Protein backbone atom coordinates (compact mmCIF):
# COMPACT_ATOMS: atom_id res chain seq x y z
CA UNK A 1 0.00 0.00 0.00
CA UNK A 2 1.27 3.40 -0.97
CA UNK A 3 1.82 5.79 1.94
CA UNK A 4 1.07 9.37 1.03
CA UNK A 5 3.11 12.15 2.54
CA UNK A 6 2.38 15.82 2.44
CA UNK A 7 -0.23 17.02 0.02
CA UNK A 8 -0.47 14.74 -2.94
CA UNK A 9 -2.79 16.36 -5.46
CA UNK A 10 -3.12 13.73 -8.13
CA UNK A 11 -6.77 13.28 -7.13
CA UNK A 12 -8.67 16.48 -6.64
CA UNK A 13 -12.14 16.14 -5.09
CA UNK A 14 -14.88 18.01 -6.96
CA UNK A 15 -18.02 16.89 -5.11
CA UNK A 16 -19.09 14.74 -2.20
CA UNK A 17 -21.27 11.93 -3.50
CA UNK A 18 -21.76 9.77 -0.45
CA UNK A 19 -21.05 9.65 3.18
CA UNK A 20 -22.06 8.35 6.51
CA UNK A 21 -21.27 4.95 7.83
CA UNK A 22 -18.29 4.22 5.61
CA UNK A 23 -16.40 7.41 5.61
CA UNK A 24 -16.83 9.67 2.67
CA UNK A 25 -17.08 9.16 -1.08
CA UNK A 26 -15.97 11.87 -3.45
CA UNK A 27 -16.19 12.37 -7.16
CA UNK A 28 -12.68 13.58 -7.95
CA UNK A 29 -10.52 14.38 -10.93
CA UNK A 30 -7.34 12.52 -11.70
CA UNK A 31 -5.26 15.50 -12.74
CA UNK A 32 -2.83 13.26 -14.67
CA UNK A 33 -5.41 11.67 -17.00
CA UNK A 34 -8.02 14.42 -16.69
CA UNK A 35 -10.67 11.76 -16.01
CA UNK A 36 -13.08 11.53 -13.11
CA UNK A 37 -12.49 8.92 -10.40
CA UNK A 38 -14.36 7.92 -7.24
CA UNK A 39 -12.44 8.26 -3.97
CA UNK A 40 -13.67 6.06 -1.15
CA UNK A 41 -11.99 6.55 2.18
CA UNK A 42 -12.28 4.71 5.41
CA UNK A 43 -10.63 5.61 8.69
CA UNK A 44 -9.10 2.67 10.46
CA UNK A 45 -7.66 2.35 13.92
CA UNK A 46 -3.95 1.65 13.98
CA UNK A 47 -1.59 0.45 16.66
CA UNK A 48 2.20 0.11 16.83
CA UNK A 49 2.02 -2.64 14.20
CA UNK A 50 0.37 -0.32 11.71
CA UNK A 51 -2.80 -1.19 9.81
CA UNK A 52 -4.94 -4.07 11.08
CA UNK A 53 -4.22 -7.37 9.34
CA UNK A 54 -7.86 -7.68 8.26
CA UNK A 55 -7.75 -4.35 6.40
CA UNK A 56 -4.52 -5.25 4.66
CA UNK A 57 -6.04 -8.61 3.70
CA UNK A 58 -9.24 -7.10 2.29
CA UNK A 59 -7.34 -4.51 0.30
CA UNK A 60 -5.02 -7.22 -1.02
CA UNK A 61 -8.08 -9.22 -2.11
CA UNK A 62 -9.48 -6.25 -4.03
CA UNK A 63 -6.11 -5.71 -5.71
CA UNK A 64 -5.95 -9.39 -6.65
CA UNK A 65 -9.41 -9.14 -8.25
CA UNK A 66 -8.09 -6.24 -10.27
CA UNK A 67 -5.58 -8.52 -12.03
CA UNK A 68 -8.48 -10.22 -13.84
CA UNK A 69 -9.57 -6.97 -15.45
CA UNK A 70 -13.19 -8.17 -15.41
CA UNK A 71 -15.37 -6.12 -17.78
CA UNK A 72 -18.30 -5.93 -15.35
CA UNK A 73 -16.66 -4.51 -12.24
CA UNK A 74 -15.18 -1.04 -11.86
CA UNK A 75 -11.39 -0.73 -11.99
CA UNK A 76 -9.54 -0.21 -8.72
CA UNK A 77 -6.88 2.23 -9.86
CA UNK A 78 -4.98 3.06 -6.72
CA UNK A 79 -4.88 2.62 -2.96
CA UNK A 80 -3.36 5.24 -0.67
CA UNK A 81 -2.89 5.25 3.07
CA UNK A 82 -2.46 8.49 4.95
CA UNK A 83 -1.57 8.47 8.60
CA UNK A 84 -3.83 10.92 10.43
CA UNK A 85 -2.53 10.40 13.92
CA UNK A 86 -0.81 7.77 16.06
CA UNK A 87 -4.08 5.87 16.30
CA UNK A 88 -5.77 6.51 12.98
CA UNK A 89 -4.97 5.97 9.32
CA UNK A 90 -7.12 6.96 6.39
CA UNK A 91 -7.21 4.36 3.63
CA UNK A 92 -8.39 5.72 0.30
CA UNK A 93 -9.42 3.47 -2.57
CA UNK A 94 -9.39 5.11 -5.98
CA UNK A 95 -11.94 3.61 -8.36
CA UNK A 96 -12.84 4.26 -11.95
CA UNK A 97 -15.84 6.61 -12.09
CA UNK A 98 -18.68 5.88 -14.50
CA UNK A 99 -20.93 8.87 -15.07
CA UNK A 100 -24.25 6.99 -15.15
CA UNK A 101 -25.96 4.56 -12.79
CA UNK A 102 -28.74 2.09 -13.49
CA UNK A 103 -31.27 4.31 -11.72
CA UNK A 104 -30.55 7.16 -14.15
CA UNK A 105 -30.40 4.74 -17.08
CA UNK A 106 -33.86 3.34 -16.27
CA UNK A 107 -35.34 6.81 -15.78
CA UNK A 108 -34.02 7.84 -19.19
CA UNK A 109 -35.64 4.98 -21.09
CA UNK A 110 -38.56 6.30 -23.10
CA UNK A 111 -42.00 4.71 -22.49
CA UNK A 112 -42.86 1.85 -22.40
CA UNK A 113 -39.41 1.17 -20.94
CA UNK A 114 -36.37 -0.83 -21.92
CA UNK A 115 -36.75 -3.36 -24.75
CA UNK A 116 -36.71 -6.98 -23.46
CA UNK A 117 -33.43 -7.69 -25.28
CA UNK A 118 -31.75 -4.76 -23.53
CA UNK A 119 -32.94 -6.01 -20.13
CA UNK A 120 -31.55 -9.47 -20.90
CA UNK A 121 -28.19 -8.00 -21.88
CA UNK A 122 -28.00 -5.87 -18.71
CA UNK A 123 -28.95 -8.89 -16.58
CA UNK A 124 -26.34 -11.09 -18.24
CA UNK A 125 -23.63 -8.53 -17.58
CA UNK A 126 -24.79 -7.96 -14.00
CA UNK A 127 -24.74 -11.71 -13.29
CA UNK A 128 -21.32 -12.10 -14.97
CA UNK A 129 -19.93 -9.44 -12.64
CA UNK A 130 -21.54 -11.09 -9.63
CA UNK A 131 -20.43 -14.61 -10.60
CA UNK A 132 -16.89 -13.25 -10.85
CA UNK A 133 -17.04 -11.63 -7.42
CA UNK A 134 -18.69 -14.66 -5.82
CA UNK A 135 -16.16 -17.08 -7.31
CA UNK A 136 -13.51 -14.97 -5.57
CA UNK A 137 -15.45 -15.11 -2.32
CA UNK A 138 -16.35 -11.45 -2.44
CA UNK A 139 -19.93 -10.51 -1.74
CA UNK A 140 -21.43 -7.15 -2.48
CA UNK A 141 -24.04 -6.93 0.30
CA UNK A 142 -25.54 -3.65 -0.86
CA UNK A 143 -26.44 -4.09 -4.52
CA UNK A 144 -28.90 -1.43 -5.75
CA UNK A 145 -29.50 0.58 -8.93
CA UNK A 146 -27.28 3.38 -7.59
CA UNK A 147 -24.16 1.22 -7.53
CA UNK A 148 -24.73 -0.64 -10.76
CA UNK A 149 -23.08 1.60 -13.32
CA UNK A 150 -23.84 1.70 -17.04
CA UNK A 151 -21.37 3.29 -19.46
CA UNK A 152 -22.51 5.28 -22.48
CA UNK A 153 -21.77 2.14 -24.52
CA UNK A 154 -24.18 0.09 -22.40
CA UNK A 155 -21.51 -1.78 -20.43
CA UNK A 156 -22.51 -2.73 -16.89
CA UNK A 157 -19.95 -2.24 -14.11
CA UNK A 158 -20.56 -3.11 -10.49
CA UNK A 159 -19.27 -0.65 -7.90
CA UNK A 160 -18.93 -0.61 -4.10
CA UNK A 161 -18.28 -4.36 -3.80
CA UNK A 162 -15.99 -5.76 -1.16
CA UNK A 163 -16.09 -2.57 0.85
CA UNK A 164 -18.65 -3.79 3.36
CA UNK A 165 -16.13 -5.95 5.17
CA UNK A 166 -13.43 -3.29 5.23
CA UNK A 167 -15.93 -0.85 6.62
CA UNK A 168 -17.73 -3.11 9.05
CA UNK A 169 -14.53 -4.23 10.76
CA UNK A 170 -13.27 -0.82 11.64
CA UNK A 171 -15.72 1.94 11.17
CA UNK A 172 -17.23 3.83 14.01
CA UNK A 173 -20.88 3.03 13.52
CA UNK A 174 -22.96 6.07 12.77
CA UNK A 175 -26.68 5.80 12.21
CA UNK A 176 -27.34 6.37 8.56
CA UNK A 177 -30.42 5.87 6.47
CA UNK A 178 -29.86 3.04 4.04
CA UNK A 179 -32.44 1.60 1.71
CA UNK A 180 -34.11 -1.66 2.71
CA UNK A 181 -35.71 -2.25 -0.66
CA UNK A 182 -33.11 -4.69 -2.02
CA UNK A 183 -32.49 -6.59 1.23
CA UNK A 184 -33.26 -10.30 1.38
CA UNK A 185 -35.31 -11.91 4.16
CA UNK A 186 -32.26 -13.40 5.89
CA UNK A 187 -30.67 -9.95 6.27
CA UNK A 188 -33.94 -8.39 7.44
CA UNK A 189 -34.16 -11.21 10.00
CA UNK A 190 -30.44 -10.89 10.81
CA UNK A 191 -29.86 -14.59 10.43
CA UNK A 192 -27.21 -15.08 7.75
CA UNK A 193 -25.10 -13.14 5.27
CA UNK A 194 -23.62 -14.94 2.32
CA UNK A 195 -23.49 -14.62 -1.46
CA UNK A 196 -27.23 -15.45 -1.95
CA UNK A 197 -27.86 -11.99 -0.45
CA UNK A 198 -26.69 -10.45 -3.74
CA UNK A 199 -28.92 -12.73 -5.81
CA UNK A 200 -32.01 -11.53 -3.96
CA UNK A 201 -31.03 -7.92 -4.67
CA UNK A 202 -30.44 -8.87 -8.32
CA UNK A 203 -33.95 -10.33 -8.47
CA UNK A 204 -35.43 -7.08 -7.12
CA UNK A 205 -33.46 -5.14 -9.72
CA UNK A 206 -34.50 -7.55 -12.51
CA UNK A 207 -38.16 -6.84 -11.66
CA UNK A 208 -37.44 -3.10 -11.48
CA UNK A 209 -36.00 -3.08 -15.01
CA UNK A 210 -39.45 -4.06 -16.30
CA UNK A 211 -41.49 -2.06 -13.80
CA UNK A 212 -39.30 1.06 -13.79
CA UNK A 213 -40.12 1.36 -10.13
CA UNK A 214 -38.89 -0.72 -7.19
CA UNK A 215 -40.63 -4.02 -6.41
CA UNK A 216 -40.66 -3.90 -2.58
CA UNK A 217 -40.64 -0.43 -1.01
CA UNK A 218 -40.67 -1.13 2.72
CA UNK A 219 -40.40 1.57 5.33
CA UNK A 220 -39.03 -0.62 8.10
CA UNK A 221 -37.60 -4.11 8.38
CA UNK A 222 -40.99 -5.58 9.35
CA UNK A 223 -42.80 -3.65 6.64
CA UNK A 224 -40.22 -4.77 4.07
CA UNK A 225 -40.69 -8.44 5.06
CA UNK A 226 -44.46 -8.02 4.97
CA UNK A 227 -44.29 -6.65 1.42
CA UNK A 228 -42.04 -9.52 0.35
CA UNK A 229 -44.34 -12.17 1.87
CA UNK A 230 -47.37 -10.66 0.15
CA UNK A 231 -45.70 -11.44 -3.17
CA UNK A 232 -43.79 -14.68 -2.59
CA UNK A 233 -46.11 -16.09 0.07
CA UNK A 234 -45.47 -17.00 3.71
CA UNK A 235 -42.68 -19.58 3.83
CA UNK A 236 -43.12 -22.82 5.72
CA UNK A 237 -42.23 -23.17 9.39
CA UNK A 238 -39.12 -25.18 8.36
CA UNK A 239 -37.85 -22.43 6.08
CA UNK A 240 -38.12 -19.70 8.72
CA UNK A 241 -34.70 -19.27 10.36
CA UNK A 242 -34.39 -20.26 13.98
CA UNK A 243 -33.09 -17.98 16.70
CA UNK A 244 -34.35 -14.77 15.13
CA UNK A 245 -36.23 -12.13 17.05
CA UNK A 246 -38.99 -11.73 14.50
CA UNK A 247 -41.33 -14.71 14.57
CA UNK A 248 -43.18 -16.13 11.58
CA UNK A 249 -46.39 -15.65 13.59
CA UNK A 250 -46.12 -11.88 13.04
CA UNK A 251 -47.09 -12.34 9.42
CA UNK A 252 -50.47 -13.33 8.04
CA UNK A 253 -50.46 -16.55 6.09
CA UNK A 254 -50.33 -15.76 2.41
CA UNK A 255 -50.01 -17.94 -0.63
CA UNK A 256 -47.71 -16.76 -3.39
CA UNK A 257 -49.21 -14.40 -5.95
CA UNK A 258 -48.43 -14.86 -9.65
CA UNK A 259 -45.23 -12.85 -10.18
CA UNK A 260 -46.66 -11.57 -13.47
CA UNK A 261 -49.21 -9.57 -11.41
CA UNK A 262 -46.26 -7.44 -10.34
CA UNK A 263 -44.06 -7.73 -13.42
CA UNK A 264 -46.57 -8.03 -16.28
CA UNK A 265 -44.08 -7.42 -19.10
CA UNK A 266 -41.76 -10.32 -18.23
CA UNK A 267 -41.78 -13.46 -20.41
CA UNK A 268 -42.25 -16.99 -19.09
CA UNK A 269 -38.61 -18.01 -18.74
CA UNK A 270 -37.82 -14.60 -17.25
CA UNK A 271 -40.55 -15.09 -14.65
CA UNK A 272 -39.15 -18.54 -13.77
CA UNK A 273 -35.68 -17.11 -13.28
CA UNK A 274 -37.02 -14.21 -11.23
CA UNK A 275 -38.77 -16.63 -8.84
CA UNK A 276 -35.56 -18.63 -8.43
CA UNK A 277 -33.85 -15.39 -7.37
CA UNK A 278 -36.67 -14.27 -5.09
CA UNK A 279 -36.59 -17.52 -3.10
CA UNK A 280 -37.02 -17.04 0.65
CA UNK A 281 -34.55 -19.71 1.75
CA UNK A 282 -31.02 -18.53 0.79
CA UNK A 283 -29.81 -22.14 0.52
CA UNK A 284 -32.42 -22.82 -2.17
CA UNK A 285 -31.86 -19.56 -4.08
CA UNK A 286 -30.20 -19.86 -7.51
CA UNK A 287 -26.49 -18.92 -7.76
CA UNK A 288 -25.13 -16.32 -10.19
CA UNK A 289 -23.40 -19.03 -12.24
CA UNK A 290 -26.54 -21.20 -12.44
CA UNK A 291 -28.65 -18.16 -13.30
CA UNK A 292 -26.43 -17.50 -16.33
CA UNK A 293 -27.23 -21.03 -17.56
CA UNK A 294 -30.98 -20.49 -17.19
CA UNK A 295 -33.13 -20.89 -20.34
CA UNK A 296 -33.96 -17.15 -20.10
CA UNK A 297 -30.47 -16.45 -21.45
CA UNK A 298 -30.57 -19.06 -24.23
CA UNK A 299 -30.96 -17.83 -27.84
Amino acid sequence: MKMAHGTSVQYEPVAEIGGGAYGTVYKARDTESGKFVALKSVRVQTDQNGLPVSTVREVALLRRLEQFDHPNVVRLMDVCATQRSEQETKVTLVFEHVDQDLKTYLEKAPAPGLPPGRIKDLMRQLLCGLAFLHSNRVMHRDLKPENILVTSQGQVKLADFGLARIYSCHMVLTPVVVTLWYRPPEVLLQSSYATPVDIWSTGCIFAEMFRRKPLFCGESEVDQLGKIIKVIGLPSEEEWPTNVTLSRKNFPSASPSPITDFVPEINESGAQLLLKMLTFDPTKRISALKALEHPYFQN
Partner: protein
Amino acid sequence: AARGRTFWTMPLEDELTAAAAKGDAAQVRSLLGAGAQVNGVNCFGRTALQVMMMGSTRVAQILLDHGADPNVADGTTGATPLHDAARSGFLDTVRLLVRFTADPNARDQADRRPVDLARDECHTDVVAFLESL
Protein backbone atom coordinates in the same frame (compact mmCIF):
# COMPACT_ATOMS: atom_id res chain seq x y z
CA ALA B 1 -36.13 4.48 4.49
CA ALA B 2 -35.34 6.95 1.80
CA ARG B 3 -32.98 6.36 -1.06
CA GLY B 4 -30.12 8.78 -0.85
CA ARG B 5 -29.52 11.15 2.03
CA THR B 6 -30.13 14.67 2.95
CA PHE B 7 -27.12 16.75 3.90
CA TRP B 8 -28.64 18.88 6.59
CA THR B 9 -25.47 20.61 7.56
CA MET B 10 -24.23 21.63 4.13
CA PRO B 11 -24.63 24.95 2.39
CA LEU B 12 -27.21 24.75 -0.39
CA GLU B 13 -24.56 24.84 -3.14
CA ASP B 14 -22.78 21.84 -1.64
CA GLU B 15 -26.08 20.01 -1.55
CA LEU B 16 -26.84 21.04 -5.13
CA THR B 17 -23.51 19.79 -6.49
CA ALA B 18 -23.86 16.54 -4.52
CA ALA B 19 -27.36 15.96 -5.89
CA ALA B 20 -26.18 16.76 -9.43
CA ALA B 21 -23.20 14.40 -9.10
CA LYS B 22 -25.55 11.65 -7.94
CA GLY B 23 -27.94 12.27 -10.81
CA ASP B 24 -30.78 13.01 -8.40
CA ALA B 25 -33.00 15.19 -10.59
CA ALA B 26 -35.81 15.58 -8.04
CA GLN B 27 -33.39 16.82 -5.40
CA VAL B 28 -31.68 19.18 -7.87
CA ARG B 29 -35.05 20.69 -8.72
CA SER B 30 -36.11 21.10 -5.12
CA LEU B 31 -32.78 22.67 -4.08
CA LEU B 32 -33.01 25.19 -6.91
CA GLY B 33 -36.55 25.91 -5.74
CA ALA B 34 -35.22 26.41 -2.22
CA GLY B 35 -32.83 29.08 -3.44
CA ALA B 36 -29.59 27.26 -4.27
CA GLN B 37 -27.60 29.31 -6.80
CA VAL B 38 -27.29 27.37 -10.05
CA ASN B 39 -23.85 28.87 -10.75
CA GLY B 40 -22.77 28.86 -7.11
CA VAL B 41 -19.66 26.84 -6.30
CA ASN B 42 -19.31 24.14 -3.68
CA CYS B 43 -16.52 23.83 -1.12
CA PHE B 44 -14.27 22.51 -3.91
CA GLY B 45 -14.90 25.54 -6.11
CA ARG B 46 -17.04 23.68 -8.66
CA THR B 47 -20.55 24.34 -9.98
CA ALA B 48 -23.28 21.73 -10.25
CA LEU B 49 -22.98 21.52 -14.05
CA GLN B 50 -19.25 20.81 -13.75
CA VAL B 51 -19.70 17.86 -11.43
CA MET B 52 -23.08 16.47 -12.53
CA MET B 53 -23.54 12.83 -13.47
CA MET B 54 -22.82 13.29 -17.18
CA GLY B 55 -25.22 10.52 -18.18
CA SER B 56 -28.12 12.27 -16.48
CA THR B 57 -29.50 14.36 -19.29
CA ARG B 58 -32.41 15.23 -17.01
CA VAL B 59 -30.14 16.86 -14.43
CA ALA B 60 -28.29 18.69 -17.22
CA GLN B 61 -31.61 19.96 -18.61
CA ILE B 62 -32.81 21.28 -15.24
CA LEU B 63 -29.51 23.06 -14.53
CA LEU B 64 -29.31 24.60 -18.01
CA ASP B 65 -32.97 25.66 -17.88
CA HIS B 66 -32.10 27.48 -14.66
CA GLY B 67 -29.27 29.35 -16.35
CA ALA B 68 -26.23 27.19 -15.57
CA ASP B 69 -23.13 28.49 -17.37
CA PRO B 70 -22.01 25.71 -19.76
CA ASN B 71 -18.62 27.30 -20.43
CA VAL B 72 -17.14 27.25 -16.97
CA ALA B 73 -13.76 25.48 -17.07
CA ASP B 74 -12.15 23.32 -14.40
CA GLY B 75 -9.62 25.42 -12.49
CA THR B 76 -7.00 22.68 -12.63
CA THR B 77 -7.37 21.02 -16.03
CA GLY B 78 -9.32 23.57 -18.03
CA ALA B 79 -11.96 20.97 -18.97
CA THR B 80 -15.48 22.30 -19.58
CA PRO B 81 -18.62 20.21 -19.00
CA LEU B 82 -18.64 19.58 -22.77
CA HIS B 83 -15.13 18.07 -22.52
CA ASP B 84 -16.33 15.71 -19.79
CA ALA B 85 -19.58 14.80 -21.53
CA ALA B 86 -17.68 14.14 -24.78
CA ARG B 87 -15.02 12.03 -23.08
CA SER B 88 -17.63 9.90 -21.32
CA GLY B 89 -19.61 9.53 -24.56
CA PHE B 90 -23.07 10.73 -23.53
CA LEU B 91 -24.38 12.07 -26.83
CA ASP B 92 -27.69 13.37 -25.44
CA THR B 93 -25.87 15.47 -22.85
CA VAL B 94 -23.35 16.67 -25.47
CA ARG B 95 -26.18 17.81 -27.76
CA LEU B 96 -27.96 19.55 -24.90
CA LEU B 97 -24.83 21.43 -23.80
CA VAL B 98 -24.19 22.58 -27.36
CA ARG B 99 -27.82 23.72 -27.70
CA PHE B 100 -27.25 25.81 -24.57
CA THR B 101 -24.21 27.46 -26.22
CA ALA B 102 -21.38 25.34 -24.84
CA ASP B 103 -18.33 26.13 -26.99
CA PRO B 104 -17.33 23.05 -29.03
CA ASN B 105 -13.95 24.65 -29.73
CA ALA B 106 -13.05 25.21 -26.08
CA ARG B 107 -9.54 23.98 -25.33
CA ASP B 108 -8.40 22.50 -22.04
CA GLN B 109 -4.93 23.04 -20.60
CA ALA B 110 -3.57 20.24 -22.76
CA ASP B 111 -4.88 22.24 -25.75
CA ARG B 112 -7.52 19.66 -26.57
CA ARG B 113 -11.09 20.18 -27.72
CA PRO B 114 -14.09 18.05 -26.67
CA VAL B 115 -14.02 16.22 -30.01
CA ASP B 116 -10.40 15.18 -29.40
CA LEU B 117 -11.35 13.53 -26.12
CA ALA B 118 -14.36 11.77 -27.67
CA ARG B 119 -12.06 10.44 -30.42
CA ASP B 120 -9.55 9.11 -27.84
CA GLU B 121 -12.36 7.10 -26.27
CA CYS B 122 -13.81 5.93 -29.63
CA HIS B 123 -17.21 7.56 -29.10
CA THR B 124 -17.86 7.75 -32.82
CA ASP B 125 -21.40 9.13 -32.48
CA VAL B 126 -20.17 12.02 -30.36
CA VAL B 127 -17.24 12.65 -32.75
CA ALA B 128 -19.61 12.71 -35.73
CA PHE B 129 -21.96 15.15 -34.00
CA LEU B 130 -19.21 17.54 -32.89
CA GLU B 131 -17.60 17.46 -36.32
CA SER B 132 -20.92 18.31 -37.94
CA LEU B 133 -21.11 21.65 -36.12
